[in-house]
């Protein structure tokens, strides 16, 4: 275990708070694992291309519990009726009230309610069942262990059977100051036939000042039969900030999960996105765009486990890297024995705008079932010179031509959003940060 991990382990607080026994056991167990294995290193296969040097270099320390001295938030990317403000991993407030059938609580409140018997159905099971990533080295799961070892902050959303929860915005911000690591847990439970749209925005309130904090968020969702979750994530953190997230989605029969992720900022970003299709005819659609400039690093690992019949999954990711930006993309599909009739599509295309930029993309596909339709493609290339000439021959200069082509390339992701207002707002954000081409 390296010095950085040891420092974080040493910062793990001595816990004197009253908690239910199962929570204490969960926290202690994870703390032991973390002390034994630490954070991932490049020796872990899943972290081969992503080192944590940037966090260490900034002197990142584990945040210990304290009240924030100030709180400021970026303006919401679009107007949303129900908005939850998350500061330093803690739920601050909910604006806009709750639609019928929706329960929304801070995590510690939800756990307290659990003690009195008014808890959210399924919460304990969910928290206790965060699956291991099955990596060979346990350090691969270091951030998850750390997250569970400090389990306290976060949010729980429950939508009752058949209810339409509408759209919620989780607006994440951190208090500016020394580089700190904040842990938070999001739990989303949709009962059968329930529906919810979650829009997450990770953005520093003040775009002009540097913010070297890191959020470590574990997002768990369970979709009951026929439930539907649309999950949109806009990440436009400061260039010094870190964001480590893990999304675990369990899908029962005929449920639908749709993810649209936009990585437009952040210095060190890692997202592990994992769907388990445990019920028949479940559908997972994972889409994302990542735009890199400066020396930013964005690593997305997307994986779908098809564990039941007739499932459908698609992964559609587009990346653009300029300057000395570095993107890592790993897309995996695993079709388990018995998951007959599965259809799985994977598509990842990337454009390099500079010689110093780097993109590492790796598709993985393992099939152990029959009647499976699967396709995958991963490309890294430059802009089409024929297309550039065509645009120039009509009067657009080279810079405009390149901008139009890279924007269109990324818009193919935002265009998939059916809400035109949202897709246009995100498309505009992408245009604003589009990296420039250079030699």
């Amino acid at each position, binding site marked *: 275990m390296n010095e950085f991990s040891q420092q974080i382990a040493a910062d793990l607080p001595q816990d004197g708070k009253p908690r239910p026994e199962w929570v204490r056991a969960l926290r202690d167990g994870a703390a032991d694992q973390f002390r034994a294995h630490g954070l991932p290193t490049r020796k872990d296969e899943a972290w081969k291309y992503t080192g944590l040097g940037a966090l260490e270099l900034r002197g990142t320390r584990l945040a210990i519990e304290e009240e924030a001295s100030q709180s400021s938030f970026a303006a919401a990317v679009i107007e949303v009726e129900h908005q939850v403000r998350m500061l330093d991993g803690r739920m601050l407030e909910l604006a806009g009230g709750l639609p019928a059938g929706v329960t929304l609580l801070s995590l510690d409140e939800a756990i307290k309610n659990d003690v009195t018997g008014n808890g959210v159905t399924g919460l304990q099971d969910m928290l206790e069942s965060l699956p291991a990533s099955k990596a060979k080295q346990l350090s691969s799961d270091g951030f998850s262990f750390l997250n569970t070892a400090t389990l306290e902050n976060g949010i729980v959303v429950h939508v009752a059977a058949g209810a339409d929860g509408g759209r919620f915005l989780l607006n994440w911000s951190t208090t500016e100051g020394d580089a700190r690591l904040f842990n938070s847990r999001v739990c989303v439970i949709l009962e059968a036939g329930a529906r919810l749209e979650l829009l997450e925005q990770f953005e520093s309130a003040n775009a002009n000042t540097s913010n070297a904090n890191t959020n470590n968020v574990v997002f768990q969702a369970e979709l009951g039969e026929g439930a539907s979750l649309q999950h949109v994530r806009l990440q436009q953190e400061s260039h010094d900030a870190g964001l480590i997230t893990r999304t675990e989605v369990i899908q029962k029969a005929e449920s639908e999960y749709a993810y649209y992720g936009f990585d437009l900022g952040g210095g060190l970003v890692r997202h592990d996105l994992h769907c388990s299709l445990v019920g028949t005819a479940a559908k997972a659609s994972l889409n994302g765009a990542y735009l890199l400039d400066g020396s930013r690093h964005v690593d997305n690992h997307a994986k779908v486990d098809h564990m039941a019949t007739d499932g459908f999954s698609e992964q559609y990711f587009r990346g653009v890297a300029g300057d000395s930006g570095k993107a890592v993309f790993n897309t995996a599909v695993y079709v388990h024995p018995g998951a007959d009739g599965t259809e799985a599509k994977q598509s990842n295309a990337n454009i390099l705008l500079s010689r110093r930029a780097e993109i590492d993309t790796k598709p993985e596909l393992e099939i152990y079932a029959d009647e499976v339709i699967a396709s995958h493609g991963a490309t890294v290339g430059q802009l*089409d*010179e*024929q*297309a550039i*000439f*065509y*645009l*120039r*021959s*009509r*009067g*657009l*200069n*080279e810079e*405009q031509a390149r901008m*139009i*082509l890279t924007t*269109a*390339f990324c*818009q*193919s992701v935002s*265009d998939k959003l059916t809400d035109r207002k949202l897709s246009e707002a995100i498309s505009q954000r992408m245009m604003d940060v589009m990296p420039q081409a250079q030699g």
Partner: protein
Amino acid sequence: MLKITNLHAKVAGKEILKGLNLEVNGGEIHAIMGPNGAGKSTLGNVLAGREGYEVTQGEITFNGKNLLELEPEERACEGIFLAFQYPVEIPGVNNTYFLRAALNAQRKYRGEPELDSVSFLRLVREKLNVLHIGDELLHRAVNEGFSGGEKKRNEIFQMAVLEPMLAILDETDSGLDIDALKTVAEGVNRLRSPDRGMIVITHYQRLLDYIVPDKVHVLADGKLAATGGAELALKLEEEGYAWLEDGGIGSITNENAAPAEAP
């Protein structure tokens, strides 16, 4: 308007144009015909400024300016338009958005005010009406999934909106059936004007049944081997290009053995 003097050009190190002279004035339509590999498309690409086409000798002036010193977009803004032989598909870029950006870039260059989306749409509808083209191509990505005929019509539509001074049609008839050919030719004829010059590059005479040229030139082995009126095209139709070699003008002996033109 356009004056080409002793033009020599290389593609991939191979000399394709070998001393071409041509002058086009406003209101004139010039047809350039010739066998495959004679350098017809090279001429179009040199005029538009495509990379990889190296001019080794000679000069081209356009309205008195040295064209060879201009970037492709500057040439477009000066009023040169190339209708591509193979229009490029650009997924994700909306045709209307692209055309408005292009028109406004040209207007800006000329010091004219840019058009807002309302005025632009009005202009576009007017042009579509004149050309008898439906508006479905406005909503699609540039050339993406277009049939051959749709791509060529889109080129003519762009030309109508951009209103160039000199239009170069590079084998616009290739790959078109007779109905599409007529539509395209009709579009071109509607754009004929006393101020506008046109160069129609074609391999076959049939396009010239519908677009009647003022002059017909035969390009062979990188030079104009013959020039005449519209009747020259008919002679070519009857006799093919073989008479060129019989007359000892060209050195091309076999179309298949002719050097392939760069795309």
